[in-house]
């Protein structure tokens, strides 16, 4: 009796497993290429990141190189570069967040109020376009426009009787150049997600508000904006998870020896220390610190938001 009781579920379990595998194996085959990609090219580097805790040398390899613990991290925290890099990175990303965050929302709300469909289409096509310009062309445009001798911006400045400004070689201008060119490039595209969310506004609510004599402003403020709130919160959380990632792609192209005081950010420093001067372990440690802080920020902000506003990524 007891024997039978034990064996029956066991057999059915293994049977179930075999049956499940028979039924599902083709799905796993479909999953396999992508999964292999993630394991090799995303988790592979995460595994390789252990060299941040070692003194990497090519002879001993990733797992064989001597373990040094937190030495590289401590070296980074103690180096005079640490505060400079952290400061530059935070300045650019916070500036970017604060200055850039409202524009897509304003543009989406404004586009949503346009009644002329043709003009709306046109405005959308134009404002989304800069997003598709490559970062190299974008930086080329910035460099050309801001040239002290031939750039159109300085032509305008000198025409007004002021002195030409060497924008790109003035360190204090760098964060503004980076942030405002980013706003130019990203506002339209950023508005798409809010524009999509606005299609979720209940038309009956708007109708009722109109009947009650609400003005257009009031409808935007009390109906459209609250509808956008969950999207706004999600976007804010995502942005906070990127607080320490000022990308190297654009920064690297706009850097020169004269603006380095403000344009050297963590990601470009990782590239230079790692690939240009080949200090693999030290550079990996800096990159890992960066990733870890981002991850931590994301978790913190997400938890906070879930408690306060019930909007969260997970």
């Amino acid at each position, binding site marked *: 009796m007891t024997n039978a009781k034990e064996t029956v579920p066991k057999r059915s379990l293994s049977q179930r497993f075999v049956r499940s595998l028979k039924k599902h194996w083709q799905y796993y085959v*479909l999953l396999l290429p992508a*999964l292999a990609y993630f394991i090799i*090219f995303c988790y592979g580097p995460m595994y390789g*990141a252990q060299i941040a805790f070692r003194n990497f040398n090519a002879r001993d390899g990733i797992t064989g190189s001597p373990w040094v613990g937190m030495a590289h991290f401590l070296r980074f925290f103690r180096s005079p570069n640490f505060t400079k890099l952290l400061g530059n990175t935070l300045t650019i990303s916070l500036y970017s967040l604060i200055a850039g965050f409202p524009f897509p929302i304003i543009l989406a709300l404004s586009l949503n109020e346009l009644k002329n469909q043709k003009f709306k289409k046109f405005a959308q096509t*134009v404002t989304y376009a800069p997003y598709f310009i490559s970062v190299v062309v974008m930086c080329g445009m910035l460099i*050309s426009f801001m040239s002290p001798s031939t750039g159109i911006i300085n032509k305008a400045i000198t025409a007004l009787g002021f002195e030409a400004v060497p924008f790109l070689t003035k360190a204090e201008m760098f964060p503004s150049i980076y942030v405002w060119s980013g706003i130019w490039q990203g506002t339209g595209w950023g508005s798409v997600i809010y524009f999509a969310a606005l299609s979720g506004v209940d038309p009956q609510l708007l109708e009722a508000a109109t009947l009650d004599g609400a003005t257009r402003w009031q409808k935007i403020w009390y109906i459209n904006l609250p509808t956008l709130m969950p999207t706004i919160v999600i976007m804010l959380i995502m942005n906070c998870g990127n607080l320490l990632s000022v990308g190297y792609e654009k920064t690297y192209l706009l850097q*020169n020896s004269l603006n380095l005081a403000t344009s050297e950010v963590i990601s470009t420093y990782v590239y230079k220390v790692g*690939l240009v001067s080949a200090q693999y372990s030290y550079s*990996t440690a800096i990159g890992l610190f960066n990733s870890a802080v981002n991850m931590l920020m994301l978790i913190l902000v997400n938890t906070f938001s879930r408690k306060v506003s019930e909007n969260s990524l997970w």
Partner: protein
Amino acid sequence: MTKTEVRKKRRQRLTRDDIVFNTFNYILIFFFVAVTLYPLIYVVSASISEPTKVNSGQMWLWPVGFTTVGYEKVFRDPDIWLGYRNTIFYTVAGTLLNLAFTLPCAYALTKKTLPFKSLINFVILFTMFFSGGLIPLYMLVNNMGLMDTIWAVLLPTAVSAYNVIITRTFMDTSIPDGLEEAAEIDGCSPFGVFFRIVLPLSSPIIAVMALFYGVGHWNSYFNEMIFLSDRAKIPLQVVLRELIIITQMNTDNSVINNTEAKTAAEMQQLAGVIKYSVMIVSTLPIIVVYPFLQRFFVKGVMIGSIKG
């Protein structure tokens, strides 16, 4: 009340408040459009204007004088042709690879009963928020022997977790479950369902993904810069970087040196117009297809935002 009556009534009720609002709104949109458009028009105009007029600031919106000298120099540069050819290859091959990896994976993830589904989901999502960093990736590519091969360009960007999620959401919401179930009852295998039913019904999302991935390949320069050293393999964006960024201070580059320009001033004039021309030439494919495909891009973001 019929629809036209309602509309009439609304039109009558266009209050002073509405008029003020509309005026303000149109001014705001015009501002956004003008600020976006101005630099783009300027680049186009500068690429066909007399270099002296551009550099002196006389050309500030519409072309002044007319010359195609910039374009002529660009088209005569072998590096640009080479870069163009390589970029087309990376974009086409890379995008096909992206689709071949992304679509089946997204479909399998729509199966709610798939064992270990949530674990696999987590494994994929986690990569959006954490990465090993630049150096470990560089070492991996190096150890795999991919350095300076086309695979170093194609493989490290083979799948984007974000795009998998968007595709999964689309397949989840737009393909009726009943259709797949019916095919399964008729004896169709999961492969059969995927290739014969899901793929043909997914053409909108395939278009969106091809565009997202395609533009990404077209515009990418950093991975190519660090993984490729063979001149024969470099893509357009790397050539562009040399041409319009590195030479910003000196006028010493191949395209300009091959010209008849005698003085340093003349060379600088020419450098300007060449830069503007090359910006247009490199962005042209995107400019041409963009207006037609814009709605697909937008659709992609909208699908993504459902489960963003």
